[in-house]
C-alpha cells in the first residue's frame, strides 16, 4: 500500500477530516458487502472511488450519509461521529435521528438516476432544501438557486419541469440542488452512468470545475480518464475491501495489485 497512508488504518480520529470512515463493515443478510473500509477525505480532497460492479462502491457512499446503516464501524463528518447504537441482534442503528438529519443537510448527494423531484420546477428543486430544511428565506433561496443554476448552465431553465430536461440537464440541476445547500462535502454515485454518451461531457465539465475550486468530494465513477484528471486521491475497492489507494499517477500509472492492473486495462 502507498505511503499516502493517513487513511489506511486510522485508529486515530482525524479532526481535520471532512469525512472520516473507520473500519466500515456492511452486510446484507448473510452477504458481507463491505469488509472493513477506512477512508479519509480532507477539505479540498477529491477522492475517486473505482472498482468493479458489486465491489461495494455505492454501499460505501451510502453509508457516509447513512442511507445505509453500517453493520459496524465509525463514520464522522467534520470531526462529528454519527451517534449509532448496537441493537440486540448486534447491528448498528441510528441513535439520534436529529443529528443524522443535521449532518445530512450538509452532505449533498448526486445520484446516478438524478432523482429530481418531478412535481417541482428546476428552481423549486433547488430551493427545496434551503427553504424547507435549512430555513433560508424564500428570497435568499431564490437568489442562491439562480446563481448555482447559472453556474451549471441552466440559468434559462428555472421554470422548466425536470421531465422537460435532457438527462445531462437533469444531472446538472441535481448538482445545482447540492450546491445550493453549500455542502461541506459532495457525494457522487456514478453521476454520468445513466447518460447518453454525448451528454457525459457537459456533466463532467461541471464536476471538474467544482473539483478545481477545491470542493471536498467523494466521486464513485467508471470514468477512469476523468478520475485520473481531477482526483487528488484514488481508492480501488475490490470485494468490499480497499485493495489499493494512492495518488492518481500511482494508481493509474503504476498499479501494484494484479487485480487493479487487470481492472484498469479492462476499462481503459
Amino acid at each position: 500500500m502507498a505511503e499516502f497512508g493517513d487513511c489506511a488504518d486510522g485508529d486515530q480520529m482525524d479532526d481535520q477530516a471532512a469525512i472520516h470512515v473507520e473500519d466500515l463493515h456492511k452486510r446484507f443478510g448473510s452477504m458481507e458487502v463491505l469488509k472493513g473500509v477506512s477512508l479519509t477525505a480532507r477539505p479540498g480532497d477529491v477522492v475517486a472511488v473505482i472498482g468493479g460492479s458489486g465491489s461495494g462502491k455505492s454501499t460505501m457512499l451510502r453509508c457516509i450519509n447513512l442511507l445505509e446503516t453500517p453493520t459496524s464501524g465509525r463514520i464522522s463528518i467534520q470531526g462529528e461521529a454519527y451517534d449509532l447504537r448496537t441493537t440486540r441482534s448486534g447491528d448498528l442503528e441510528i441513535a439520534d435521528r436529529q443529528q443524522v438529519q443535521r449532518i445530512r443537510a450538509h452532505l449533498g448527494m448526486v445520484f446516478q438516476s438524478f432523482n429530481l423531484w418531478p412535481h417541482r420546477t428546476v428552481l423549486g428543486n433547488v430551493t427545496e432544501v434551503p427553504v424547507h430544511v435549512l430555513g433560508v428565506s424564500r428570497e435568499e433561496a431564490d437568489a442562491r438557486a439562480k446563481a448555482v443554476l447559472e453556474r451549471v448552465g441552466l440559468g434559462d431553465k428555472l421554470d422548466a419541469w425536470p421531465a422537460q430536461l435532457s438527462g445531462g440537464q437533469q444531472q446538472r440541476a441535481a448538482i445545482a440542488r447540492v450546491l445550493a445547500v453549500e455542502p461541506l462535502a459532495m457525494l457522487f454515485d456514478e453521476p454520468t452512468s445513466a447518460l447518453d454518451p454525448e451528454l457525459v461531457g457537459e456533466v463532467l465539465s461541471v464536476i471538474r470545475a467544482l473539483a478545481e475550486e477545491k470542493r471536498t468530494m467523494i466521486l464513485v465513477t467508471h470514468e477512469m480518464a476523468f478520475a485520473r484528471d481531477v482526483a487528488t486521491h484514488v481508492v480501488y475497492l475490490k470485494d468490499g475491501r480497499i485493495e489499493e489507494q494512492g495518488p492518481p499517477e500511482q494508481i493509474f500509472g503504476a498499479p501494484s495489485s494484479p487485480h487493479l492492473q487487470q481492472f484498469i486495462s479492462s476499462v481503459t
Partner: protein
Amino acid sequence: MTEGIDFSLLALDAPGWGGALLTGFLRSVELAVGGYALGIVIGIIGAIAKLYGGRVTRDLAEIYTIIIRAVPELVLMLLFYYVGTDLANRAMQAMGYAGFDVNGLTAGILVIGLVQGGYATEVLRGAIRAVPRGQIEAAHAFGMSPAKVLTRVTLPAMTPHAIPGMANLWMIATKDTALLAVIGFSELTLVTRQAASATREYFLFFISAGVLYLILTLVSNYGLRRFEKHARRGMDAAR
C-alpha cells in the same frame, strides 16, 4: 300517478318539496365531503402503516382493509353506526356525561370515512409505490425529517398516481351517502322517498333526485379533472 306531472310539487316552499330536497342534497354533499376527507386521512395512515410499519402495524392495517373490502358496505355502515354509537354512548356515560347523543352528521361522516378509508389505503399504497424510490431517498439524503419527506415529496409525488383511483372513490362516497337513508339520515334519498310516498309522485321525485346526483357527479368530475391536470403538470410537460 295522475295524468301529467305536477311540477309545482318541486316548489321550494311547502307544500312544495323542493326546499326539503335541496336540504337533503346538501346533507348528502356534507356527508360525502366529510366522509371522503376522513377516508383520505385514514388512507394515508393506512398506506404508511402498510408500507413502512412494523409487523403489528402492518397486520392491523391488513385486517382493516380486508374486512372493509370483504363485507358489504351497507352491513359495515349498520355495524359501525349501531356499535359505534353504542360504544360512544357507553364511554361518555362512563366518563360521567349522561344522555350523550352522537351528532347525526358526525356519525354519518365517521361511518362513510371508515369504509372509504379501507379502499383509500389500497389506492394510496399503490400510488406511493409508484413513486421511484430514489426521489424519496434523495429527500432523506438532504436531511429532511420523515414528516417533511412525506408532505414535501412522497404525497405530492404520488398524487398523480392516486387521482384515478381516488376520483373513483369520490363517486362511491357520493353514492354511499344514500345507504345512510337506511339508518334514518335525512339525506337526499330519504327525503326523496318521503316526498314520493307523501305525494305518490314517485317518478317526479326519484328523477329529481337522480338529476341532483348527476349534477354533483358532473361538477365534481370537472373539478377532479382540473385537479389532475394541476397535479400532473410536471409529468405532462412535453419534453
